[in-house]
């Protein structure tokens, strides 16, 4: 509908500090997710050796299965309690952040690079290149990927690199589809044709002319996928097909806690909460970035 322009009375913005002003900042910027990502994921991952109170792999048998500090029998020596081998839960969560961060960054970078390149190629060359790439994408989209991931891990054995490989092979599809779609429109624009007339090579046109125009999409996708990568890694680790024990992956820790859920609920509870908070924040962050950079992705 044509909205009448008419005459406007501007609303005066309160310039002084007020609860309403703080609330507006909270609504406009992702304060909460940034805070969580920083203090639960990034800072612990970087400074794990400095801030963690104990060794993540060595436990003290004297303090096995001790509860969190507020419970009877708990103490501030182990804030969030200990597991069956007497390892400090808080320490392991801090070191676990390192694993989650590294896996998600490595997986997203590798998957994103492959996916973006293939998407650019599909859009730029079109024809049979496009057909083949998109058929492969469809195949990947219609496979039970967690099951395949289990098979891959069974074949190559669980390790850091297997998990990154699995994550990357799951992620590239999304990039290919999105980048292809957007590059198709950009490809038809004037400046690409001009570059071609000027004799630029295929690679140059793809990476110097088209790529910079889809970079926003790539960033938004990367943030949006961070959450699902962390979920995937923890699920694989939980199933014993991810990060091998005794490494403190959050998923492994939940798996350890599962066997002691009756006597020591805290072993499973806290790492799971860490996963949830981080994934939640990554999703919120991604939503916010998408709205800022690339509103047309809203349907994704």
């Amino acid at each position, binding site marked *: *509908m044509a909205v009448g322009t008419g005459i406007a009375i501007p609303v005066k913005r309160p310039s002084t500090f007020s609860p309403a002003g703080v609330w507006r900042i909270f609504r406009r910027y992702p304060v909460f997710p940034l805070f969580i990502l920083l203090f639960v994921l990034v800072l612990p991952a970087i400074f794990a050796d400095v801030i963690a109170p104990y060794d993540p792999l060595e436990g003290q048998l004297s303090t096995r299965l001790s509860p969190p500090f507020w419970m009877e029998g708990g103490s501030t020596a182990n804030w969030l309690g200990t597991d069956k081998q007497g390892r400090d839960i808080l320490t392991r969560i801090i070191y676990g952040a390192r694993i989650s961060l590294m896996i998600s960054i490595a997986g997203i970078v590798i998957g994103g690079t492959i996916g973006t390149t293939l998407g650019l190629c599909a859009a730029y060359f079109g024809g049979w290149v496009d057909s083949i790439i998109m058929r492969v994408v469809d195949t990947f989209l*219609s496979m039970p990927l967690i*099951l395949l991931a289990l098979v891959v891990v069974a074949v190559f054995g669980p390790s850091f690199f297997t998990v990154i490989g699995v994550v990357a092979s799951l992620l590239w599809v999304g990039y290919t589809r999105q980048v292809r779609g957007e590059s198709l429109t950009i490809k038809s624009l004037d400046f690409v044709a001009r570059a071609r007339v000027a004799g630029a090579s295929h690679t140059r046109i793809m990476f110097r002319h088209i790529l910079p125009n889809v970079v926003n999409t790539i960033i938004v996708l990367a943030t949006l996928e961070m959450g699902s990568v962390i979920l995937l890694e923890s699920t694989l680790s*939980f199933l014993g*097909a991810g990060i091998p024990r005794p490494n403190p992956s959050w998923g492994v820790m939940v798996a350890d806690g599962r066997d002691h*859920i009756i006597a020591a609920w805290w072993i*499973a509870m806290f790492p799971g909460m860490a996963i*949830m908070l981080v*994934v939640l924040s990554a999703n919120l962050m991604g939503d916010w970035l998408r709205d800022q950079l690339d509103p047309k992705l809203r349907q994704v």
Partner: protein
Amino acid sequence: MQRYLLIRFGQSLITLIGVSIIVFTLARMSGNPLDVLVPEESGPEVIEQISKLWGLDKPWHEQYIVFVTNAARGDFGNSIKWQGQKAMDLVLQRFPATLQLASLAMVVAVLLAVPIGVLSAYKKGSWMDYLGKTVALLGQSSPSFWIGIMLIWIFAVQLRLLPTSGRGEWQHMILPGVALGWFPVAAFMRLIRSSMLTALDSEYVKLARLKGVPEWKIIWKHALKNAAIPPITFFGILVARLLTGSVAIETVFAWPGVGLLALEAVNARDYQVVQAVVMIVSAIFIFMNLLVDLAYAYVDPRVRLG
């Protein structure tokens, strides 16, 4: 319409072939099958005999043809872990349990997600909307295996209301059903909310209002049928997620379904069973996507007739 069907069918077939190639390759990469088949300390002539029997002396593309023709007949060989059982039979035995859980989660998801999603779009900015958004966010952010364990802790360990694991009475289904349904509720609701917002903002809804159509009819007839189109596309992805996502849930609740079978087979390096599971679940998944496209065409006349 027939042409469309034919094309979609052809694409599905190609996808299925793609899956079979990947499965075949992975299984061959897992090591020489002879190691499993041949008794230790056999002479070279025994090895040769067995190779011939299984077609392992032939070039790999012929081996693949043998694999596919056998698979098409439902023959994936015998299980190694479960001696004397055919891999295919094992999958078929376990399948009903998975199907039961997945359909429960699905039904619950639709029953919850549709009304909440619709109302939170209609009353945008209300407490209903915030509730919906919160549920959606939490649902998409929580690891389902952890939710399962926490459900066990609360309802089985602390409150002693429900059994911790296994399959049997109806009570056994509740906790795994909730844990599995958690994600689809959230995903569906989010989708319905956003497509409902678009539909409610459309000119045809405006015209329906101008016609004096009652609000309930505008929401549940005019807007919802349009808003249902994107969630239907998502349905296929969701079924796949339920079938495979059940790996974690079935593990947590010791629910004897296909997911648990797959995990057990992988841990035992029982590739015959693994191949069978992956191929069958993929086939179901591809078939579901085909069905979804048909449903899509049914709801949207522009696809059906255009």
